[in-house]
């Protein structure tokens, strides 16, 4: 195990976050705060409770998930795409690090950033809305699991992308709609039954539902299914990364 190698990549990526703190921390925090102000305080007071939870509190888990997914993907994809783009990837490829170690460094750093960001957003939300966390262990578990899973997903996108546009396409065109339609702002039960069925094909539904259960003990789908689906997606990402390194896809010719 090349411990120093993993640490070097991890610290390098964390240093990048410190350099770009405005973009990678402050900007998602501010945009999430705007949601809280508009939907939580302003409009939220006129909305009815959902499952006996005030609307402002109800949307917190979904909004945290939104930031978590977007930032995990963008951190991890940028982390590996930039060396590819600038050519400094040669150093990682020629270093005595195994692919597991490369992933630990890049994905570990991206996931750490996301967890930190998620906690900051939760702390900030407290300023606007009163909420409780019924199952703190599961809350943290979902936070970490989702961060790791989507950092892995971002890592895959970063390797696949051969231009800056492709880096943006997946988070903007696919993930954002999935989060908005995944029950961030409403309960799936509120939809007509046909759309309820369609929603079940949206993987983000399971993440938000599970995360919300950790807060308030209510969920759209059973918590076991939520955990299961998250693990399925995590495994799929791991298999994809394994395939990438085994074949050298877009890394080693």
């Amino acid at each position, binding site marked *: 195990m*090349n*411990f*120093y*190698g993993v*640490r*070097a*990549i991890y*610290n*390098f990526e964390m*240093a*990048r976050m410190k*350099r770009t703190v405005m973009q990678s921390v402050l900007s998602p925090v501010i945009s999430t705060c705007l949601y809280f102000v508009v939907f939580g305080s302003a409009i939220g007071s006129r909305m009815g409770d959902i499952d006996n939870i005030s609307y402002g509190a109800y949307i917190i888990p979904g909004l945290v998930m939104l930031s978590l997914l977007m930032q995990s993907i963008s951190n991890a994809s940028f982390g590996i795409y930039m060396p590819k783009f*600038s*050519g*400094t990837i*040669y*150093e*990682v*490829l*020629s*270093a*005595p*690090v*195994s692919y597991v170690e490369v992933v630990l460094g890049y994905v570990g750093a991206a996931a750490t950033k996301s967890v930190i960001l998620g906690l900051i957003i939760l702390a900030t939300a407290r300023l606007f809305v009163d909420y409780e966390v019924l199952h703190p262990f599961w809350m943290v578990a979902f936070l970490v699991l989702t961060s790791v899973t989507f950092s892995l997903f971002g890592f895959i996108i970063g390797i696949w992308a051969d231009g800056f546009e492709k880096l943006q396409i997946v988070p903007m065109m696919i993930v954002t709609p999935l989060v908005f339609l995944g029950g961030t702002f409403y309960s799936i039960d509120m939809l007509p039954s046909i759309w309820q069925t369609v929603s079940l094909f949206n993987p983000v539904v399971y993440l938000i539902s599970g995360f919300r259960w950790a807060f308030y003990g209510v969920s759209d789908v059973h918590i076991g299914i939520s955990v299961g689906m998250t693990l399925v997606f995590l495994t799929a990402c791991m298999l994809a990364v394994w395939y990438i390194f085994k074949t*050298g896809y877009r890394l*080693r*010719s």
Partner: protein
Amino acid sequence: MQPDISVQHLSKVYGDGFQALKDINLEIKRGEIFALLGPNGAGKTTLISIICGITNLSEGKVEAAGHDIVRQYRKARQSIGLVPQELNTDSFETVWNAVSFSRGLFGKAPNPEHIEKVLKDLSLWDKRNNRIMSLSGGMKRRVMIAKALSHEPQILFLDEPTAGVDVELRRDMWEMVRKLRENGVTIILTTHYIEEAEEMADRIGVIREGQIILVEEKDQLMSKLGKKELRLQLQSKLDKMPGELTLEPIELSEDGYELIYTFDSQQEQAGVARLLRTLGDLGIDYRDLQTRESSLEEIFVGLVHE
């Protein structure tokens, strides 16, 4: 002694079917400076990339410092430092952080004294807290060398190290390479500048169309393939070549004031004596004469155009 780099029957075919290397066999001795020469696209960078682990090999076996580069890639890669051709740097990092990062990446515990020494040797110490993007091209090149030396490699690859570098830096770099060799580091450099190989290398390999066509001690190569030339400045103009001389490999300059005689340096020197005797017999006087050996550049051009 065991070679530091051993390449056996190495072939590389890229995904698009292009065969970049064909059955390469090469051994590089510990502590020598080996220059790999070849025209653009001959396979120099592919060969280096395979040894360093950046490109996968298609067939064959490569060992670095006695370790198989596939099965024992950790030990093999730990022994290698690479300075690639392109100036690829982390623009936003400071020099110190970038060089320290490289050391960690190669599995070595932090050692600020070593990093300090490397930076000082490369005249980068004053710039250690500067972001790399603020440095000049030559300074960036030094940073890349510092990164490659950060983990104290046994083998150093320099891929076109002096391309686009000013004279001062080139001299500095040659000096640095000599010092490294004194410390027992094996150095492999590819270059377009034949004078560089001529100045530095112990041995020279020539690669053409993915094949190694020659590996020789530099001095032997120069004497074996080198042509010598004797130029005689004549006292008076010759209108045409005297018939007695037409059998010799000799030419008359256009103005008729110079005779140019070329011969292999290995060939017995009798040719020169015979020529001078013949000139004496013919009553052709000369003011001055010079001999010179052909440079490696001429040898190289001769080889790759064969």
